């Protein structure tokens, strides 16, 4: 019987040390993908687009993945916009990154989307990041969550890990952000229609973009 209690005590100590070690060595977001790069180079990339190249209207959206309004717009308005404007060939939608400095992991999330995009899964990853947006409220390091989201988006995790560790698209994201600064982007989401900044007093809905598209198409005849 005494031997049993000795086993219990030893097991408790071993498990306690294991839990302590696990809490100390949890996965961390690679710095290269979290922070701004020291230098910026234009790689010619101008954002992922949805819709046909022949569409007369192009909406450019400057987006921050940690921004709750962007998530709300993506999950509530975007499905209707896709159905009524993008899939019908009237509008092409371009996504540009504008990670706000107040958001700790928005640049990291943008990088995760870019690494998924390198494998042809940008939009699937974008859906995952916006649909499971609870990560943006916890303040906790989302690196492991993003891996599981990437996996759900169909991304090969080995290539994803290499991409994230290297911070391969950090300069691309910073270039997009600086471009947004030059265009006087002052918050997210900010929209441009054929290069002209759109000013909304509230979060726009699908009807607003339908009206804008109708107006541009009518004037282009």
């Amino acid at each position, binding site marked *: 019987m005494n031997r049993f209690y000795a086993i219990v005590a030893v097991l408790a100590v071993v498990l306690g040390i294991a839990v302590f070690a696990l809490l100390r060595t949890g996965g961390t977001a690679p710095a290269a993908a979290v922070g701004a790069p020291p230098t910026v180079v234009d790689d010619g990339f101008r954002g992922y687009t949805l819709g046909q190249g022949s569409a007369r209207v192009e909406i450019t959206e400057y987006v921050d993945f940690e921004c709750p309004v962007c998530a709300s717009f993506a999950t509530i308005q975007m499905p209707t916009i896709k159905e009524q404007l993008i899939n019908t060939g009237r509008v092409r939608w371009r996504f540009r990154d504008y990670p706000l400095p107040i958001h700790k992991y928005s640049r990291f999330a943008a990088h995760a989307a870019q690494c998924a995009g390198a494998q042809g899964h940008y939009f699937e990853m974008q859906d995952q990041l916006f649909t499971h947006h609870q990560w943006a409220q916890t303040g906790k390091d989302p690196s492991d969550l993003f891996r*599981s989201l990437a996996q759900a988006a169909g991304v090969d995790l080995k290539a994803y890990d290499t991409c994230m560790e290297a911070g391969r698209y950090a300069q691309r994201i910073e270039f997009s952000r600086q471009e947004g600064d030059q265009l006087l982007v002052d918050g997210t989401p900010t929209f441009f229609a054929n290069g002209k900044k759109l000013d909304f007093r509230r979060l726009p809905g699908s009807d607003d973009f339908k009206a804008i598209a109708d107006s541009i198409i009518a004037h282009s005849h």
Partner: protein
Amino acid sequence: MRQRQAIALLALVGLFVALYLWLHALGFGGAIKCGVSGGCETVQTSQWAVFLGLPVAFYGVVGYCAVLGVALASLRPLALAQRQWNVMLVSLASVGLFFTIYLTYLELFVIHAICRWCVGSAAIITLIWIVALLSLRSPGTRTDHGASQQQPGQPV
């Protein structure tokens, strides 16, 4: 007695699994260690990770503490021959098992993500339940060597 000892050891392991998940839910440590498969953060950050205002893992900590406490109490010399301790262990394990079945259903069919820590806990509570059931069928014993009076067809 061996069965009660086994339950105590299993409950101890389960307690630390639940403790890790609870501390993580409280914000201690970095991202959860989940291996290549991922899924733990998806489960832990889902709306089902909180039950009645508290992290689900907290109920695991309480449950395993209860099982461990009862199992250790049942190993006192005076309690060894008392069958009601086995009934208590089966009851506690059954509550834990049903809660685990509910959580596993959520993982598989609602959240669509599997957390290997939750799978580990599910395996532990299932084992506890099986061992507790077996203990219910065994006669009480006072021996220190686990040499229950063996009867034909009964587990030792």
